[in-house]
């Protein structure tokens, strides 16, 4: 510990240059993702799944140290680099999956990684309030609030509208023409027809692997005509995340048609991911810049006996 302290002192921990890793981490990360990844939405998505965890990393530092020193920015950046390069999210996801079903969505880990440290920092701040902890806590809570807002407005809202539109379109098309077969091939909609049991078996062994479709076909077999349309996220645990509208139609003769529309919703979903990531990234850069500027000037204040005092 003493050795580490000696090394730290030799590195001039109060130099303003140590703020640079924190200020530049997001631009560098975004540029690297854009160069590395061919798929633009996936490149941007890595900002919203990884880069936003820089603030939680600073939260961890704030929990451990009450007083801010510019070198803490570099520590947070190292912590973030370790989290990202060691694929910690995926490791935690696999571990938690043994206990809780996360619906195939590893983004819950990202959310947990933001919420849990923020809650611990809140307790630490109540115990001993320093300006470092207060500023970082405000940043973390603002991040959680705005990301929730951005996600609801840019992702959940448009997906709901698109899902309702597809449902209404398919229902009315069927009502007007008494069939939906003629939509097959339009906008890359792929169709599969046969008996409900046969299709359920076919899907259960296929690469597409839509659990809900198989379950629905099994449940509805022998129960007469039915029409179901819904939107679901496919392969959320991999980089090739997609959205698809699925329609299952069973007619009076017990013939089933499964229509999967993946291209258009996936394209829209890609745009949503870009929008969300740009907003999340822009917000984070602004907050990090402001927070580090405040901390650089006033990072050694502590709240004691009803007022802020310099330690």
């Amino acid at each position: 510990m003493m050795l580490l302290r000696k090394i730290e002192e030799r590195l001039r921990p109060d130099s303003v240059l140590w703020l640079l890793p924190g200020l530049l981490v997001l631009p560098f990360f975004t540029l690297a993702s854009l160069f590395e990844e061919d798929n633009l939405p996936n490149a941007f998505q890595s900002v919203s799944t990884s880069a936003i965890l820089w603030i939680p990393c600073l939260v961890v530092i704030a929990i451990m140290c009450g007083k801010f020193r510019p070198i803490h920015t570099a520590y947070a950046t190292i912590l973030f680099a370790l989290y990202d390069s060691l694929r910690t999210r995926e490791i935690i996801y696999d571990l938690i999956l043994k206990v809780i079903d996360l619906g195939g969505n590893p983004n819950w880990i990202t959310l947990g990684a933001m919420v849990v440290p923020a809650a611990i920092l809140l307790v630490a701040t109540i115990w001993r309030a320093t300006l470092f902890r207060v500023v970082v806590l405000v940043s973390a809570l603002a991040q959680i609030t705005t990301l929730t807002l951005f996600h609801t407005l840019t992702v959940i809202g448009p997906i709901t509208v698109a899902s309702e539109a597809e449902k209404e379109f398919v229902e009315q098309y069927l009502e007007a023409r008494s069939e939906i077969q003629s939509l097959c091939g339009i906008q890359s909609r792929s169709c599969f027809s046969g008996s409900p049991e046969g299709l359920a078996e076919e899907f259960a062994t296929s690469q597409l692997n839509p659990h809900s479709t198989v379950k629905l076909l099994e449940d509805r077999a022998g129960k007469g005509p039915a029409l179901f349309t819904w939107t679901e996220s496919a392969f959320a645990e991999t980089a090739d995340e997609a959205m698809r509208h699925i329609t299952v139609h069973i007619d009076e003769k017990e013939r089933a048609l499964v229509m999967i529309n993946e291209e258009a919703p996936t394209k829209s979903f890609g745009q949503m991911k870009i929008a969300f990531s740009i907003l999340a990234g822009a917000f984070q850069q602004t907050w990090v810049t402001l927070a580090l500027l405040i901390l650089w000037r006033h990072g050694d204040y502590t709240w004691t006996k009803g007022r802020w005092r310099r330690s």
Partner: protein
Amino acid sequence: MANIVRSLSDSVLVLIPALGLAATLVGHLTTRMAATAVTIAVLLDTAGLRHLLLEATRGWLHDSHNPSWVTVGLVLFAAAAVGGSLLRKATLSRVICAMMCGAQIVVLTAFHQLLVISPIQAEEARETALVSGLVEQGGDFRSLCGVAGRACWLGSPEEVASEVGEQVAHSDGIVRLLEDTADRPNLLHSWTEMILPSTDEEGLMNVSVVKADMNAALVMVDIEGPSRVLDTAKQAFGVLAVAFHQAWITLGLLIIWRHRNLYYQGGRWRTEG
């Protein structure tokens, strides 16, 4: 709901320009002056100044029916005014207001592009793909008529142009297209356009026109579906714009309130008086 959020965000957008113009005029912004500027801006906006300015400038400055252009003009004018006044005397109030105006331009441009323009373009691409797919498959898109609020007109190009002109508001583009392409036997056009931007009932319209021979045109108009997309986009833009303004105005006014007498001269900040 979308119109309520839209109306709220429209009113909120004038607050930062109002503070910017006040700082330009008085140099050091006091709390009373800031409150007065904000109140006057809200009152003028409620009185319909935006529409009056739009009408007054139409013809010689622009040809638009969209009052949002007045807001854009006001935001840019305020930013230029407060930026110019900094060259004369850089008070802290002006510096903060200039930053707020700059941030407003950047953030609103990003919000508008990401939350409004992109979803509209995606909606246009989706409808175009659907229509062209059906045309490739069966010659026209008649099977879509009546589905999810789509209305169709079929007949000779002249008849269709006259019926659409009578029954569809903002049908100028469709009528002009049918007239301009009267001598073309084959045609497929699909596009998305804004309707009624000068009223509260603004919406979005998908239009598809197909001609298989000189004497038969089919026009399909869909207002319901794309307008729903526009409503979602307006809500998202409005909520984020209001949240952004709330944050910036609160922070900006707090800084101005604490340091309102400062000005920058000779390489350092000095206190007035």
